[in-house]
């Protein structure tokens, strides 16, 4: 009895170990198509949507943030209506319909006309609830889609929300650094030369620290000189761009960023 229990323990432990090491890669594969199919639609429609669940998380800790976000959320109230329509899969339309009905109560036409009226406080809570519902409905559909690994998709979705900048946000940051980066024109363009720089930012976009990520592994290799020149120019760019103009929300997303400087395209042309 004891023996079998022990073997069972060991076997379980091994499985946990293996899966904890290997599954993230599996998930990486699963993640890619989901990001495209779900997120792109959202970004295309309204970039505000993905923030909503984020805000509801932070709600517990910070009331001020909640208020600010709520006022931002107030105008695009029609959006939640459209949103679920795009998401549901044939399997559980019923569930979603129920959810929609629930949600419809707060979002009445009367409310829409009242948008800026004295009932602001009531409204404050509604959008968040809606977004929470959307979040649930999303999870529901996701579960229905991938019955095999329901839990995994959930955690993954959270990650999608916390780790991605929207395309416009990313472009805004890129555009700033493009301007600050003076490319060392003599670098060899036929070699793969990339410098990865990790930056930490304050909520106002000012730089806390910047460090070169792969200096150690690179210093021994040939082409060290060009790498050094590239790395220095990249650090200068980051410092010249300080403070960065950053999105007003989602500090968690961009408080740490990795910038990959690669001059190949520019030097080739």
């Amino acid at each position: 009895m004891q023996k079998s229990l022990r073997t069972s323990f060991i076997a379980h432990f091994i499985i946990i170990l293996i899966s904890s090491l290997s599954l993230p890669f599996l998930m990486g594969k699963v993640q890619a198509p989901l990001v495209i199919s779900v997120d792109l639609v959202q970004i295309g429609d309204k970039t505000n949507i993905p923030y909503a669940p984020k805000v509801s998380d932070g709600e517990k800790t910070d009331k001020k943030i909640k208020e600010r976000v709520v006022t931002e959320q107030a105008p695009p109230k029609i959006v939640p209506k459209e949103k679920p329509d795009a998401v549901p899969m044939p399997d559980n339309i019923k569930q979603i319909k129920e959810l929609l009905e629930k949600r419809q109560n707060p979002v009445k036409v009367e409310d829409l006309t009242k948008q800026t009226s004295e009932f602001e406080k009531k409204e404050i809570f509604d959008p968040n609830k809606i977004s929470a519902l959307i979040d649930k409905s999303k999870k529901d559909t996701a579960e229905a889609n991938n019955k095999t690994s329901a839990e995994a998709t959930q955690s993954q979705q959270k990650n999608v929300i916390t780790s991605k900048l929207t395309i416009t946000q990313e472009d805004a940051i890129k555009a700033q650094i493009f301007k600050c980066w003076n490319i060392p024109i003599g670098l060899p363009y036929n070699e793969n030369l990339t410098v990865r720089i990790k930056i930490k930012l304050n909520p106002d976009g000012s730089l806390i620290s910047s460090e070169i990520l792969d200096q150690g592994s690179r210093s021994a290799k040939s082409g060290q000189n060009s790498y050094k020149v590239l790395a220095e120019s990249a650090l200068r760019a980051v410092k010249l761009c300080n403070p960065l103009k950053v999105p007003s929300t989602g500090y968690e997303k961009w408080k740490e960023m990795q910038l990959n400087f690669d001059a190949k395209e520019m030097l080739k042309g």
Partner: protein
Amino acid sequence: MKYKIFKILILCLFITNKSFAVVSVDITRGNLDPLPIAISDFYLDSKLSDNIKKLQLESKISELIKNNLSKSGLFFSLEKKSFIQLPEVAHNKPRFEDWAFIKAQVLVTGKISLEKEGGRLRVEFKLWDVVSATELSALAFYTAPENWRRISHMISDKIYERLTGEKGYFDSRIIYVSETGPKVDRKKRLAVMDQDGYGVKYLTLGNELVLTPRFSPTNQHVTYMSYFKNLPRVYLLNIETGLQDLVGDFPGMTFAPRFSPDGKKIIMSFAQEGNSDIYTMDIKTRVVERLTDHPSIDTSPSYSPEGSYICFNSDRSGTQQIYTMRSDGTNVKRISFGEGLYGTPVWSPRGDLIAFTKLYKNKFYIGVMRSDGSGERLLTENFYQEAPSWSPNGRVLIFYRETPSDNSGRGASAKLWSIDLTGYNERLIQTPTDASDPSWSGLLSSK
């Protein structure tokens, strides 16, 4: 129990995945604007003798460095008047805020003193990254005071290399054909000067016509074509000793010579009975080797920097085009396919590009293409221009340009011009006389 393990498993997934979730942004573009650089006057050690102080090297050196860097088109040199810190203070420990305030990204400071023993001049410079507030490099050179120009060029090269990632080209020389007199009685002499046009020296007297001088990679020798006793032949000249030597004993005209990258061979054309082919000759052993054997005119050969390929032009296809082949003469391939005629191909010292002259619709172009013939890019267009030659780092081309003469045959002039690979930074190089057929040496200091 199973459920618990499952939960732990999920937790593991969650944690490991979370650590991958740093936002990553690819920066694949930047600006190619000139880098704002502040070059402070050098600081003179008070112990220097009055004779040396009189030379005003402190400002002359910084001025020359400024000149070099600005001409490269890659740097924007800030006005000295705007500098807040004194040279002495800045050299020891710059206040970076003061330099950032005038929008400098890098700063050059220096100090001139006397060597402790021997009495030579010690010129020290430091290069500072103003934005990151760090020192990038610091070097000291020893020399006689007369050599301050050479030192300034070497410092310019070090700065250029440290900031762009490729070697500089300032400590180098240019040989060219100096032309004087009317068109019907043109006197052509070989002349050599510093890369910035300073210090012209004439190497021949002008009794014979000289053409196409080319520097050896070892810098001591020049090969050129001369009509000595009206026989056009390739000669070898030692610049230091002034000794001249005929290259090979060919029963006809030899022309368009060039050195191999190791400086041991001369490659050239030899013409006989209306047909010209490409030959090499080993300078030491005098062994001659024939590389092409074709009834068409093959000429203007130029080695690739590692010496394994040769580019040349030939009219074997009916019009003059550029070809490449292995250095043993095999594997001949045509690489130019554009409209017009292509000539004077020269392989870049970087190895990636071939520069050429192109004649199309009565206009002359200087252009570059990759060594496989792709990516043709015309850099400049003019009435008449030809004979590009690469700077030692393969960034700049020097060539000559002629202006048309009037009906009486007067007013035509030939001048040296340089242009960089962007095609935007075109500059006239001042020479005391008319000049043609320039050839750039390698870096003097790397020898």
